[in-house]
């Protein structure tokens, strides 16, 4: 088998499917627990993890539903393992309550959503980006999560590693918002020397009180079975972990503000984007994420061949939303075009962040097909 002494794929060139790349990325990141429930078009992630985790001494459990899947992931994370699940729309909806629980209990975990067409059962075998707002707002209450959006199989591999790093560093659920096209596409993946890939592990330990944060607003994690004897609850809790804050307005506000602030304060370290021609983009900028970025990139090249000052920015991290980056782009251009495989979700964030400095146009597409570069070019011409 083509694995190194740590059970990872040996560095080299591979031809693989996006969902497989996610699983292989997870192995590289140090994932040792997968709890999942089969759902199209994400099932290959579970299948690959069932095959691969035993190789590295990791554990795979096929749970009875997606609610249980994320619950088991959170439990395993508290028992000390890097943990993940993968799902698609209907399963993602079922996971929402426990996403909030993971936020409240500051549990590192990775949730892959290989998006398909919705609402409801929708289009199980076709792509969409219809869950982008749900990723941010799907659970109740005020909270922050981190969400990445891969547009290639290479990025499926890389962003999954990144997702684990963010989850471990910030003690927060991190979502890899893939889609059916990227998930099922087969492409070249280059795995470079592992010495060049950063792997972050959670701070295990405990301050005087279990939920008392360090200066970075993130508490050390007193994982189970080490004698910390910590009480962990989804109720609003004080730094002791006790649910007294459930009926204390001041303690509750302190906790929830910190849970938000620990992400927002670090947003500049979290943001990640790929940009081209931003020094010469006075006519138009295509702002995209995930699959439509492929057509967006081609559209920009073709527009530039027609002497249009077009630029391109691909948001690799969509949540927390990079307001200031979009604002800077809005200053430089007349028009922003946002191709999305939905009827308009992230475009509203772009509109908000551009603060009226430029015009913003959505190129919506649903039904499961990708945008063509021509559709994006036409959107510019008919702006």
């Amino acid at each position, binding site marked *: 088998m083509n694995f190194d002494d740590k059970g990872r794929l040996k560095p080299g060139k591979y031809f693989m499917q996006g969902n497989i790349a996610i699983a292989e990325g997870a192995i590289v990141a140090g994932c040792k627990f997968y709890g999942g429930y089969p759902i199209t078009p994400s099932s290959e992630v579970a299948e690959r993890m069932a095959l691969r985790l035993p190789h590295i001494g990791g554990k795979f459990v096929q749970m*009875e539903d997606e609610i249980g899947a994320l619950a088991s992931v959170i439990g395993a994370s508290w028992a000390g393992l890097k943990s993940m699940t993968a799902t698609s729309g209907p399963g993602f909806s079922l996971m929402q309550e426990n996403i909030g629980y993971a936020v409240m209990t500051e549990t590192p975990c990775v949730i892959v959503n290989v998006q398909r067409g919705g609402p409801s059962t929708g289009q199980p075998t076709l792509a969409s980006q219809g869950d982008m707002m749900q990723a941010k707002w799907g659970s109740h209450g005020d909270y922050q999560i981190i969400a990445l959006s891969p547009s290639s199989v290479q990025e499926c591999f890389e962003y999954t590693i990144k997702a684990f790093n963010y989850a471990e560093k910030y003690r927060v659920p991190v979502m890899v918002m893939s889609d059916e096209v990227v998930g099922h596409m087969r492409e070249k993946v280059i795995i470079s020397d592992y010495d060049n890939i950063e792997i972050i592990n959670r701070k295990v330990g405990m301050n005087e009180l279990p939920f008392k944060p360090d200066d970075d607003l993130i508490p050390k994690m007193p994982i189970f079975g080490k004698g910390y004897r910590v009480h962990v609850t989804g109720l609003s809790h004080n730094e002791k972990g006790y649910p007294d804050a459930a009926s204390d307005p001041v303690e509750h506000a302190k906790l929830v503000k910190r849970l938000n602030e620990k992400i927002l304060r670090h947003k500049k370290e979290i943001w990640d984007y790929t940009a081209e021609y931003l020094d010469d983009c006075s006519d138009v900028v295509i702002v995209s994420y995930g699959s439509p970025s492929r057509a967006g990139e081609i559209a920009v090249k073709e527009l530039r061949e027609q002497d249009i000052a077009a630029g391109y920015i691909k948001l690799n991290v969509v949540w927390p939303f990079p307001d200031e980056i979009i604002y800077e782009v809005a200053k430089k251009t007349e028009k922003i075009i946002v191709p999305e495989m939905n009827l308009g979700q992230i475009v509203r964030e772009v509109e908000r962040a551009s603060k009226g400095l430029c015009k913003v146009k959505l190129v919506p597409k649903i039904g499961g097909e990708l945008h063509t570069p021509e559709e994006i070019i036409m959107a510019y011409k008919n702006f």
Partner: protein
Amino acid sequence: MEHFALKYLRKDRLPHIFCPGCGIGIIINCTCKAMDELNLDLDKVVLTSGIGCSSRIPGYFYLDSLHTTHGRALAFATGIKVANPELTVICFTGDGDTGAIGGNHFIHACRRNIDITVICVNNYIYGMTGGQVSPTTPEEKVATTAPYGNIENPLDLCKLAEAAGASYVARWTTAHPFQLVRSIKKGINKKGFAFIEVVSQCYTYFGRLNKFKNNIELLKYIKENSININKAKNMSEEELKGKIIVGEFVDREKSEFSEEIHKLIDKHKIVK
């Protein structure tokens, strides 16, 4: 001298939130007794729970504990036990948490026969939310959402656990503290899924709504209606109507899930 149970409890969290006369005090006491007699390594014990009165129990124990979402405690516990099989995992839950919203996780935890001990406080009612009808409310008994009496068939959680594949299944009541201690010990020692149902008095809701004079009368009613499984075997369905059958229903050896995962890993591991 300090009460023996206090060394297991978070003293700074007392007094607790349970109503006067609630059966949960007896159940906490019996659990402490069982832990005491087993001489467990308390750093390796993890409690989990869902939502409801019974699910507030772990917060009073000076142990690692995870107070989770409604009905899901067994799914969280599955992750904990699989991730670290060295841990002794005990789950506190109730009739609504296990029988209604968490029914699916209950069935599948039994089926996997994962080494978790469940102590299920069955008080026949939703106490935390104010006395609504539960899946175990006996027929004709009154609840705030069954003001004319319950018209649904109650669920026998022990029969379900047995059918779904649990290694150990027992039912006692808060009027059977010695038997309960023995079963909790057996359950914790059992390699596999142990389900221990404890019929318990909720005077605040079940008692008052059903015209019991006080919690003692309710506890007496529970005691007097209990019939041991050995005696019940020879009784007709008619005679058993409205009775609480107590005793050990299942005590069997079966393969256990977290151990099976480790066998699989031993076979397929490529990393030293």
